[in-house]
């Protein structure tokens, strides 16, 4: 394609991406560098049905004046990034200085909101991604070798978890694992412990969230691999068969290499998806045991009645950095494949 033609071809996409992806990220970044103005507090008498009390309130006129002078707030540079809610350099340093063992140091660090959430987010990503890749491939190969009359129904059934809205799916599972629910009650029966609760233990909550994540995203990798399997060249398979390769050898040496570009693609998508895990934490009410980076953003924006835009912006930027960091190896691999194919 000529450069000129290519430019006009790509222009609408480029414009949309700038408008809807690049500019919002820049805006979030800029906001993360600012904190709100000093709130001018005044002491006044405050009366209601339960009596009168001296208390503080915000002096609207004075605060408004500050806001008009500088609508973005006070410039704070990277102060928000380094505070206790984010990278917490001072706190981590203090923990290093005061703790005697690595264990004690680690306890202190994961007690900080950002590192605690990062630990869960990374564990979740590291557990769900490979499981979904392997199981998705296995199911796709299994369904592909079914007689054609069974293929349609089994594809439909395998896709079902994907059709359920995440919030609803996890809420249903949450009720099932309740100690009065069917799964919770059965587990109590099996272990003969009426006090066993999936929701009260951090390890079991993490396991539950990871299993839910696998259940919910499996159909995505399954359907992509299943589509890929339809393009495996029959001649190569037959040639391998003639050479005496077993079914297992054919899968490992013919089918999987053929699917490698798809595996890279699915890995990319899964890493991005899993790194921003959020809905199951809310619907499982798992905040006591598991918090993710996205949950911190949600909490900053929603729960205090006074949205902390700077803090949420900083966590967003750190999340983006985390995704980029995770994706780099896969992207490098894809780039090499692309260069290899061009040669």
């Amino acid at each position: 394609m000529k450069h000129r033609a290519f430019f006009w071809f790509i222009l609408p996409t480029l414009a949309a991406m700038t408008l809807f992806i690049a500019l919002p990220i820049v805006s979030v970044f800029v906001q993360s560098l600012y904190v709100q103005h000093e709130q001018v507090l005044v002491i006044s008498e405050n009366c209601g049905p339960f009596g009168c009390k001296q208390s503080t309130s915000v002096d609207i006129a004075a605060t408004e004046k500050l806001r008009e002078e500088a609508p973005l707030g006070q410039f704070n540079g990277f102060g928000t990034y380094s505070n206790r809610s984010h990278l917490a350099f001072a706190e981590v340093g203090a923990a290093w200085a005061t703790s005697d063992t690595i264990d004690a140091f680690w306890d202190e660090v994961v007690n900080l909101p950002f590192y605690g959430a990062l630990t869960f987010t990374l564990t979740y990503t590291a557990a769900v991604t490979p499981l979904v890749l392997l199981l998705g491939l296995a199911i796709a190969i299994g369904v592909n070798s079914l007689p054609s009359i069974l293929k349609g129904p089994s594809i439909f059934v395998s896709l079902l978890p994907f059709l359920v809205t995440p919030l609803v799916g996890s809420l249903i599972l949450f009720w099932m694992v309740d100690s009065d629910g069917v799964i919770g009650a059965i587990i109590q029966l099996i272990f003969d412990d009426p006090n066993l609760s999936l929701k009260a233990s951090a390890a079991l909550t993490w396991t539950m969230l990871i299993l839910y994540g696998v259940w919910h995203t499996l159909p995505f990798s399954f359907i992509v691999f299943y589509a890929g399997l339809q393009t495996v060249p029959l001649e190569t398979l037959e040639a391998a068969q003639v050479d005496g390769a077993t079914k297992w050898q054919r899968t490992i040496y013919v089918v999987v290499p053929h699917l490698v570009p798809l595996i890279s693609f699915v890995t990319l998508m899964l890493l991005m998806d899993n790194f921003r895990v959020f809905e199951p934490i809310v619907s499982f009410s798992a905040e006591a045991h598991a918090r993710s980076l996205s949950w911190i953003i949600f909490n900053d924006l929603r729960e205090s009645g006074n949205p902390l835009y700077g803090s949420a912006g900083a966590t967003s930027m750190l999340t983006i950095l985390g995704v980029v960091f995770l994706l780099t190896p896969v992207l490098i691999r894809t780039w090499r494949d692309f260069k290899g194919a061009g040669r």
Partner: protein
Amino acid sequence: MFLKKLVIAGAALCLMKSAAFAADCGPSGQSIRILASDFPAIHAVAGTAEENCSAGASEFTRNHTTEARQIMNAALTPNPSEYTSVIVANSTLTQLMNDGLVRPLNDLVEKHGSHLPKNLMITIDGNIMAVAFMANSQHLFSRKDVLAKAGVNEIPGTYNEMITAAKAIREAGIMEHPIVMNMKTGWNVGESFNLVFLAHGGEFFKAGTAEPSVNSAAGVAALNTLRELVEYAHPDHLTQASNETQAIWEAGEAALGIMWGSRGAPILDDEGSSAEVTSNTVLSSAPSVEPGGIPGATLWWDGFTISKNVSDAEAEATFAALASALNSDMVAAHNDEAVWLLDGFKPGAAAAGVSATAQGGAAPYPMLPQIGLLHNALGSELSDFLKGEESAEKALADVEAAYVTAAKEAGFLQ
């Protein structure tokens, strides 16, 4: 027969019309738009206002949503704003006032609110910012039959009595987890701490400043009381909020509960539970630390505000419509749906707990601009202590550190 029906219908119509004419609705032809949360008492007030005054208004809309708190600041910021009134509570009024989105009502009260009791005016520095109409608070729910079976003959009045009673019930083999409380991580667990903290005489901030003071003797004592209580609560308590605790209570699986007064009426009614539970449920004051001490509860009011960014005529019409709903007829029609602060309210069984708690001298939920940030910090940092992974002092130090970080960003601390 047909004629008779017609006459009755006509008469009824006339009556309704005369009622509408009787209400003072302020300037006519205005647009009235109300944002409110979604429970029966709020529907009663806003609905009565609509019946009284929608005929004279060009538009009368009500948006009842549990998300009211989340959207109200954004909805009231533009000029003209999306709503002419928001129905708020203690904590949500400060959220609107922090951004200067509601107007003082002194002149409107003079013009259209002469029938309203003076103590319902939420007055800040002489400016009336809201008009309250109902009260709510947490208090104790007890099952007198279960207590009697365990040999406890009096309804517990203090936390220690409550814990002793729970122990007796467990040891009698009646229930393993007799206590229910709203302990869900987040707002609820923060609020549960507030109750016990206030009962222990705690102060949230150093007087006149936004410096936190929860990491104090009262804070540690409150956390220890809380842990003794949840020792007798279901292991899932960190996931339970009002809907869950009400369901556990109605299923007859708990005998001592600290729940919202507004759950009293739904628990005592004949829906969702057995007669054994409803007939034996007693509502009483929230427990205190010492006999006769401050009840461990926060008093709440619900009331209406008028937006700043609307025309004066719309503001007046909205105020008049809502004020017209606050009368003894509305209270009589909806007596058991709330603890009304209005004339004509006859406290029933469902209101006993809130009344006793208020009379015992419980503190109102603090109306401070920075309380939301502290409440959020409590909600997210206390679960480590309740899981038994942290000492009380460490948990409270974490709360203060999290609050200070947020308060610096919000401009309350420098």
